[in-house]
């Protein structure tokens, strides 16, 4: 007889979200989570927030590096070029 997986409550569902988005959950946990998400708007909103957070992380760029830091390293480049 096949045991049915126990249903998730929200407190446990949120702990599976990161691995779910990375596709690293076991098939059993993925099914449990998807079943829960199908019935839970709040956890779907949570999943949505984490997904948005990851997407926004990928859009972070580093244009704000102080110009004196860049200048210092470019000077290093000039020094290296003149020595070699």
């Amino acid at each position, binding site marked *: 007889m096949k045991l049915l997986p126990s249903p998730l*409550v*929200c*407190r*446990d569902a*949120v*702990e599976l*979200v*990161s*691995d779910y988005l*990375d596709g*690293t959950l076991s098939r059993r946990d993925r099914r449990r989570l998807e079943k829960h998400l199908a019935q839970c*708007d*709040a*956890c779907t*909103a*949570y999943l*949505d*927030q*984490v997904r*948005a*957070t*990851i*997407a*926004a*992380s*990928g*859009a*972070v760029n*580093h*244009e704000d*590096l102080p110009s004196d*830091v*860049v200048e210092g*390293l*470019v000077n*290093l*480049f*000039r020094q*290296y*070029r003149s020595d070699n």
Partner: protein
Amino acid sequence: MDDAELLESLLGGDESAFSELVRRYHPTLLKVARYYVGSAASAEDVAQDTWIAVLKGVERFQGRSSFKTWLLRICANRARTSGVKEHRSIPVDPNESGPTVSAHRFDQGGFWSEPPVPFTDAVETRLDNSALVDAVRHAIDTLGEPQQAVVTLRDVEGLSTQEVATLLGLSEANVRVILHRGRARVREIVEEAMKGSKI
């Protein structure tokens, strides 16, 4: 220009290609270095040494890995050596177990009592949402180690879990746990910052 084109220009001695690579990667080098060494000043030294190593080694770079991976490996190796000299051990997440969402958000049965609301209703415009991106950047900067290094390498730089594990001397399982906790913390900080105003 992509990294390969910048590298080509750098090989020809193009100063602007070098400064573009610095702008692109220096902040991440600092974060990788900071994971291993004890101070911001030591991290600066490691990042600077990394750029010198790049200038010395760029002609021998075979392109078997991406430039980004090669650069970050140089940095991690140097930082690890500096960290060992400083007798510094690899940071451990002080909150490695326990719930990632505050217990007061749930009722006794484990269901939301204070449910989250989506950051934005306009899903399709999310990637253009600079306010969200700024909030996330700020949140990542406030993370402690090892979460900051893991989230930066995995979600900002887009490296694989395996690459992150190699760079930071962690198991892949450990990277996944730290990443999960780091993402949950970033979400929490952003949610707090955005309370009352949809972005």
